[in-house]
């Protein structure tokens, strides 16, 4: 591996039809670290995140130029199978979206269709443990995932992603639909997961970014304004825009 980054973009521009929403972004994400993407709504941070596992493929008018490299290989121009690639890059959505089947099946479904050869019961247990959900649900693995509380559902979705043994986990404002207590639980979980996974998290909440991330990237109107160590970026931002945003002057 030539680069210190698991995932990086080179000169990446993203558009919906004629409307370019991300402009020439080049950024890298370090292995086993949490990187936060912050910026006002509409700045393109979610679109950028969704490019990392090619979820934008589902939008007809989406197009891109530039490169997205996963371990040095361009994910848009390589023989790599897109579904296989998505197995390596897990995703947690804004709104918890467990399947309407049992907790157990929520976890095993992904591995099953991807030909997982190991023991499924063991996989369920380790995944739920890693997502700090095991103790709460171990006695009701066969009840529906939809019967859990919002925060638990979100942790189930994290467990579901972990079960795929990904190297990167993308999180798209995972706490925005949750109450403060559940948010705290998820934040704690993220810091734990950081030991094993590369996490990229989009967030609206600057305190959250400051609390959990190692690096932070600030985007504004499709441009990557500034990226760097979180403590550095929050204490002495280089750009006026970053300063204003962090200072709460807009956004």
């Amino acid at each position, binding site marked *: 591996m030539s680069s210190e980054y698991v995932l990086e973009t080179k000169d990446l521009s993203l558009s919906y039809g004629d409307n370019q929403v991300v402009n020439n972004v080049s950024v890298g994400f370090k292995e086993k670290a949490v990187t936060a993407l912050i910026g006002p709504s509409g700045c393109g941070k979610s679109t950028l995140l969704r490019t990392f*596992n090619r*979820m934008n493929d*589902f939008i*007809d008018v989406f197009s891109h130029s530039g490169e997205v490299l996963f371990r040095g290989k361009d994910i848009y121009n390589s023989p790599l199978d897109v*579904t*296989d*690639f*998505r*197995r390596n890059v*897990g*995703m947690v*959505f804004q*709104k918890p*979206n*467990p*399947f*309407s*089947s049992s907790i157990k099946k929520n976890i095993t*479904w*992904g591995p099953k*269709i*991807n030909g997982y050869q190991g023991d499924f019961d063991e996989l369920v247990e380790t995944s739920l443990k890693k997502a700090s959900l095991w103790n709460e649900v171990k006695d009701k693995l066969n009840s529906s995932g939809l019967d859990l509380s919002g925060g638990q559902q979100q942790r189930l*979705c994290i467990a*579901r*992603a972990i079960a*795929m043994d990904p190297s990167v986990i993308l999180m798209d404002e995972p706490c925005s639909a949750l109450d403060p207590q559940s948010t705290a639980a998820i934040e704690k979980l993220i810091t734990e997961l950081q030991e094993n996974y590369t996490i990229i998290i989009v967030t609206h909440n600057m305190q959250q970014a400051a609390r959990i991330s190692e690096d932070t990237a600030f985007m504004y109107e499709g441009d990557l304004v500034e990226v760097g160590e979180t403590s550095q970026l929050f204490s002495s931002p280089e750009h006026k825009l970053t300063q204003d945003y962090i200072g709460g002057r807009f956004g």
Partner: protein
Amino acid sequence: MSQASSPTVPVVASKNQKNRGGETLENPKFIPNHSGRRMREYAFRAVIVSATLAALFILIVLTVNVFKQGLPWLDQQFLTSFPSRFPERAGIKSAIWGSVWLGGFTLLFSVFFGVGAALYLEELAPKNRINRILEVNISTLAGVPSIIYGMLGLTLFVRIMAFERSVLAGGLTLSLLIMPVIIIATREALKCVPDDIRLGAAALGATKWQAVRDHVLPAAMPGVLTGIILAMARAVGEAAPLIMIGALSYVAFVPESAFDAFTALPIQIFNWTSRPKEEFHALAAAGIIVLLGFLLVCNSIAILLRLKWKDHRR
């Protein structure tokens, strides 16, 4: 109508009239004619309420007439006999079994092709021009008169494929007839499944078909089933296409294979109704009760499914 609400505002306000101190809402520039307008409001309500009541009245008259005429004839003998020239010996056995056979074949073909087509168009097909043309094509097919499907069935299944005037040809014809209905209902049900589910599955490395098979289709199932049942109810009541492909009205046997000739409930009812003799009309009414019973069962299942669906989705 009531005294309390009758207007205090003069119907005609002349310009010379003095405004009484400004505490009322009168304004000489406006002549609102409240009482006249209120009358018209009541007349309007009377008209639309009577339109609704008339429709319900028709439904009641129809049901009462059918039951009054048909119920005395609806007995064991009627249900277990074959048709006959003599009203008192005539029965509906062959028609019931014919309808059951037809229903079976129709269900088989129309569900497979209808749900399959809907899954393709809604979930798998690229959303391009061809897809839109197919969409228009299907809604156009849904509006083609049923007798035209009969002409297609007559030419294609009875003659070209040489299935003759068999229950198989009838089932295939009815399948083509209700396929657009099933496709449209299934697509509507699939559209109601939130996109989260598809994206969640895709993020786990699922292919489109895997996501559809394991999550999207199960979530849409109640809606799909409701559509299928309503379409089947339509198929069971259809007579015109069956007359086209040559369903017989005098059949003194129960079909035993796909290639047997057949009659069906609506055909038998049509035949009895078209005879001048009063007794046969009564037989037709008895047949209608059986047919409506069939449909009632179908619709109750559909309603139950719909209720269950509502609960489920909260």
